[in-house]
């Protein structure tokens, strides 16, 4: 029987086991996720007199496991790494950005830079002023990582520092990254940023050392690449990504493609993903490159904001 959460997640994702097994394993993940514990040496034969405890799983299911089987361990870098590389089982995260609503309030950027300890010039998400052709009016376009299903950055990485998880998220492990910046050259959306100098919160790291969490890419490290992570640490905790929650204008929808549902970060209204995209002519950026992004845009039609100033030049 697998003793660490990573193996359990892999097993359960295969779907070979019985439903009882599956539920039990979910319990184990739940223990890891909610109490910061993982179970080792689990014995399937449970004593009926034994005391059970309730554990919340990663996907918010309440399950019971025998109390004697729970062993608390510290969430060290190794555990954070192994679970961070696998991702959340059964999920396919997807983001929808409604361009008709974006007023360039830049609250998503603020929240993001705070969450991931970024310099003011480092953007995991940036809002660009776009103009598609001389006749059409300019509009604001938030640009996170597209978390492509065919990510060029992952293909070119020489050391597997950047990788694609089963839940669709592309992450970067800054303990592995050698700083060659090939991924930055490969990304057609220019979403990757580099730590050219010491991190913004260097002092904080020195005062109170913290474990590296690959799902938040914190602490940041000099000489490594960083990028938008869809706030993978928030998702594990059952929360929406920081930028989605920070938006005051209801621009972002976020959710699970498998459930075909996305939730608006501002109104907290949940809608059917396929309907939202079909009705509003949702599209993805640079479809012709074959990167298969996981971020959809709704065209800036019937805008709720004033037209932003024309960008000085389309490309600089």
């Amino acid at each position, binding site marked *: 029987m697998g003793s660490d959460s990573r193996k359990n997640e892999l097993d359960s994702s295969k779907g070979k086991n019985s439903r009882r097994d599956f539920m039990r394993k979910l319990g184990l993940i739940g223990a890891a996720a909610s109490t910061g514990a993982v179970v080792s040496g689990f014995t399937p034969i449970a004593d009926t007199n034994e005391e059970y405890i309730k554990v919340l799983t990663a996907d918010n299911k309440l399950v019971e496991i025998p109390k004697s089987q729970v062993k608390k361990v510290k969430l060290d870098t190794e555990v954070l790494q192994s679970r961070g590389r696998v991702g959340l089982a059964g999920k396919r995260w997807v983001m929808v950005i409604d361009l008709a609503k974006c007023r360039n309030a830049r609250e998503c950027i603020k929240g993001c830079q705070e969450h991931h300890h970024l310099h003011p*010039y*480092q*953007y995991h998400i*940036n*809002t*660009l*002023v*776009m103009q598609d052709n001389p006749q059409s009016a300019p509009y604001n376009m938030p*640009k996170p990582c597209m978390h492509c299903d065919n990510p*060029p950055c992952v*293909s*070119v*990485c*020489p*050391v*597997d*520092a950047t990788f694609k998880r089963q839940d669709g998220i592309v992450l970067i492990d800054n303990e*592995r*990254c*050698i*700083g*060659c*910046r*090939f991924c*930055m*050259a*490969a990304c*057609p*959306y*220019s979403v*990757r*940023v*580099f*730590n*050219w*100098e*010491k991190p913004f919160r260097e002092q904080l790291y020195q005062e109170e050392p913290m474990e590296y969490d690959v799902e938040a890419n914190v602490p940041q490290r*000099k*000489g*490594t*690449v960083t990028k938008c992570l869809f706030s993978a640490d928030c998702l594990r905790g059952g929360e929406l990504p920081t930028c989605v929650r920070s938006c005051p204008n209801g621009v972002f929808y976020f959710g699970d493609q498998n459930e075909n549902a996305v939730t608006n970060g501002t109104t907290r209204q949940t809608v059917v993903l396929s309907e939202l995209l079909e009705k509003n002519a949702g599209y993805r*950026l*640079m479809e012709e*490159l074959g990167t298969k992004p996981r971020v959809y845009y709704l065209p800036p039609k019937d805008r709720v904001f004033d037209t932003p100033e024309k*960008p000085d*030049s*389309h*490309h*600089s």
Partner: protein
Amino acid sequence: MSDHNIKIDKKKLDKIATDVLKPVGFNNAFINWMLFLTMALVACIYAYVIQYNKGLIVTGMRDTVSWGMYIANFVFFVATALVGMLISGVIGLLGYQWIKPITRIAEIIAVAFAAVAGLVIVSDMGRPERLLNVFLYGRVQSPILWDVTVVTTYLVISLLLYLLPLIPDLAIARGRMPHAPKWQLKLYELLSFNWTHHPKQYKLLFSATRLLIILIIPTAFAIHTVTSWLLAVNSRSGWDSTIFGPYFLTGAFVTGMAAVIIAVFFFRNNYKLREYLNEPLFDKMGKLLEFVCVIYFYFNLNEFVVPAYKMKEFDAIHIHELFAGRHAVMFWLSQIFGLLIPMIVLLWKPFRKPLPLFLIALFVLVGAWFKRYIIVIPTMEHPFLPIQFLPGEWVIYQPTVIEGAVTIGSIILGIMIISVLAKLFPIIPIWEMAEEDEETKTKII
């Protein structure tokens, strides 16, 4: 030919050995030269130490132009290293005899530039201390893995191609250098592997060399094709080209040939080897340079004219920057003085005489360096999506003094390796030059 028996003209050998061995050895002038280079190198290493401590923020690179002069310089070094293959491999296998006096010089350049290219790429890394990760966690999908593999292979083959033909020479030299220091003779003894000039030994040497010069051709093609793919696998305009492999390869021949001509000119004068590195040789080298220039020009024509005709949106921005924009001066200077004018004037014999050819080669080599800059940087300045809400210096690339110093350091290191090898061992293959002409024609083929 496996049944080849070498015939060496004893008188000829004596004369060549005397001439070629005269400049060998670390004299005072050489030591001063090396001291000067070492001092300059220390300053450059200091610049690198600053970069290592403060991070790549001390360079002009930022998130927009995240590959800068280091990558351009890396491409230049790999390109120059390719000449070893052109001379020994392609021209040698075709059976041309005139390359004999310059094969060793070409191999020295190949070894020096391939070795330094590896260091140049490390100087570009944000986390150089994690270099081993490439071997620990290497992913075969990444062109960087391919590059590491083929550059290392090329370096090893080039080193062998340098050392193997040196064996008989060192055996010859051992008995003829009474004033050489003990360590040098010891080194010669070690590297000549008890060579006794036995026909069987020559037979072995020939078959080994033959195998190597066959192997070096695909390896050399691989190193520069893969280097071009580091750029061409990205979808950015300016790199998104299917002819990048041959375009780089032919450019490398031009660069390497220019480097060899410069080196040969230097040794001809400073080592007083005019008799061997003579005018007919320069004429031949000039013709070869002309030939590779024409091929490279043809690829340039394809690379720039075809996108310039269509003017697709992003290609148009790129082409405009090169033809009339911010990079126009560098682009036209490198194309006209580094390729077009050399290609035209080399058609006339007077320009293939040693001094004019040397000057032309200088222009070609400097132009080639700037051409690599033109290939790498402008493309990065124009990504698909606009760059906004960033400070101005984050958009336009301007190399810094530190970047310049580290780059100059790599060039100094290359010159140092060439200098040491050229003083430590004979620069012209003595035994090959002393061979009877008829015999050598069939030596390798």
